[in-house]
């Protein structure tokens, strides 16, 4: 009797062991792949940092054909497009999340939520196409500028792409605010709006910050749509009207030039170098997002 139970237990232990080992292998291999990609990126990109003089690499002119590899205009291009996109997407996304979660009646919420998820699934090339042929002519026409392919156009399209992420994460954050906190606000004579803006949103603030940063992470890495609508002129976006002039982003540069570049050339390495900068940037943003989540957890959250 005892021996039989022992045997059964051993059998169970053995199965346990196999399953655990399998999960471990799968888990580690995913991490392994990420590491491999990162190592590849480093191997191909790092040479640019010592082969190209620093003054050239962080110069203001990007003309690879003349050995000018100034990445500054590309970096600023990405930052400008992304920041503008966030400035557009933040109020829209937060307001939409508040509407969907707090204001819309149940039936409207049931329709809106899946619709927002569908938005997230629109391929970026389709949005780029829409931007090129619908948004850009509109901007050119209304502002009377030579081309509608501008930073602002790119930012609009990007904002649109970041919106679903921002909305759904912000909505989750609002959802996590306990119902009794809303009741408490109302019970003190706050109107529904006062309760939303002065109780619910402040309680969900760190979640909403996370939402924006995740949206930003998505926007800065986006390539296709941006390449199609920002005009791709590698110029320093420093003047006030830069918003309504073409610019070029890091991602668009890599995508456009990688196909034609001679493997192993300085130009090739520099494109990977841009990849490293981009990676670091996205990494920092995600880190900041994670840090806010972590901080919230440690403080016991607002429950």
């Amino acid at each position, binding site marked *: 009797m005892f021996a039989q139970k022992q045997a059964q237990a051993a059998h169970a232990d053995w199965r346990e062991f196999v399953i655990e080992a399998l999960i471990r292998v799968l888990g580690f291999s995913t991490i392994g792949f990420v590491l491999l990609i990162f190592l590849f990126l480093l191997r191909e990109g790092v040479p640019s940092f010592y082969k190209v003089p620093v003054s050239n690499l962080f110069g203001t002119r990007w003309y690879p054909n003349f050995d000018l590899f100034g990445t500054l205009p590309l970096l600023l291009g990405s930052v400008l497009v992304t920041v503008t996109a966030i400035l557009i997407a933040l109020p829209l996304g937060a307001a939409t999340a508040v509407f969907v979660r707090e204001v819309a*009646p*149940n039936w409207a919420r049931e329709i809106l939520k899946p619709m927002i998820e569908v938005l997230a699934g629109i391929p970026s090339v389709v949005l780029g196409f829409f931007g090129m042929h619908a948004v850009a002519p509109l901007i050119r026409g209304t502002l009377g500028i030579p081309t509608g392919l501008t930073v602002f156009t790119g930012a609009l399209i990007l904002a649109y792409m970041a919106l679903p992420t921002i909305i759904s994460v912000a909505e989750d954050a609002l959802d996590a605010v*306990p119902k*009794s*906190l809303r*009741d*408490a*606000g*109302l*019970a*003190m*004579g*706050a*109107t*529904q709006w*006062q309760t939303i803006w*002065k*109780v619910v949103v*402040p*309680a969900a*603030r760190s979640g909403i910050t996370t939402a924006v940063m995740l949206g930003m992470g998505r926007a800065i890495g986006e390539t296709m749509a941006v390449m199609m609508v920002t005009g791709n002129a590698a110029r320093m976006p420093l003047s006030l009207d830069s918003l309504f002039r073409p610019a070029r982003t890091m991602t668009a540069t890599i995508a456009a030039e990688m196909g034609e570049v001679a493997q192993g050339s300085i130009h090739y390495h520099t494109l990977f170098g841009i990849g490293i900068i981009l990676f670091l940037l996205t990494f920092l943003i995600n880190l900041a997002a994670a840090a806010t989540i972590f901080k919230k957890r440690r*403080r*016991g959250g*607002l*429950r």
Partner: protein
Amino acid sequence: MVEAKIHIDKVSYAYGENWVLNDVTLDIAPNSVTVFFGPAGGGKTTLLRLINRLNDLVEGTQMKGRILVDGQDIYNSEIHIPTLRRRVGMVFALPLPLPGTVRENVLYGLKLAGVKDRSRLDEILEQSLTQSALWDEVKDRLDHLAVALSGGQQQRLCIARSLALEPDILLLDEPTSGLDPISTRKVEDSLFTLKEHYTVIIVPHSIQQAARIADKAAFFLMGNLVEYAAGTELFTRPRKKKTEEYVTGRFG
């Protein structure tokens, strides 16, 4: 008899088609502590929430009957709901401080109501924290985050938050359910002083507590008001069999 502060008149209430209150009628006297008690799901919370219209935002509900406060039908379309809710304060089972400091929590409702006078705000701050028996413990920490207080302190803070609005009526839904016996005692003690100025309705978290604090007690069972009488009577000589069984712990 004094005129009723709250007159609940043949109230029935349903979530969807699920009727959770059936034809409930009772009068609540001013400056007294009335206890609503009975097993979970009896409709006590729902009835409390109806008295300050907190259920207005719940979708798909049906209501019959009237609720009068000071002779005025609060479901009349001319009622200004935020004003009603300032007159009828409510404290919930789980103490939930609002984001912000102790001071901000207490003065939150007044700020919304547009009170700006600093000395008046300070005065009310001290007064309501004193009434809720919390002042001595927090007077040096008024600008600390409210979430840093202990559970018992948070609950008394929530009471102070309601008192700051100087309501006539205070509804408390199991305010001590999450508290240790000492904090519970403090909250109960503060209730005794409160009833001089307020009409208090409380859902207690135990029969012992109900018996300790009730001027009048109402026993709810499955949405029906089974018995309503003075506390001294209802807990010692209940008239209905169901009440007796529940009070003596034979079911529930």
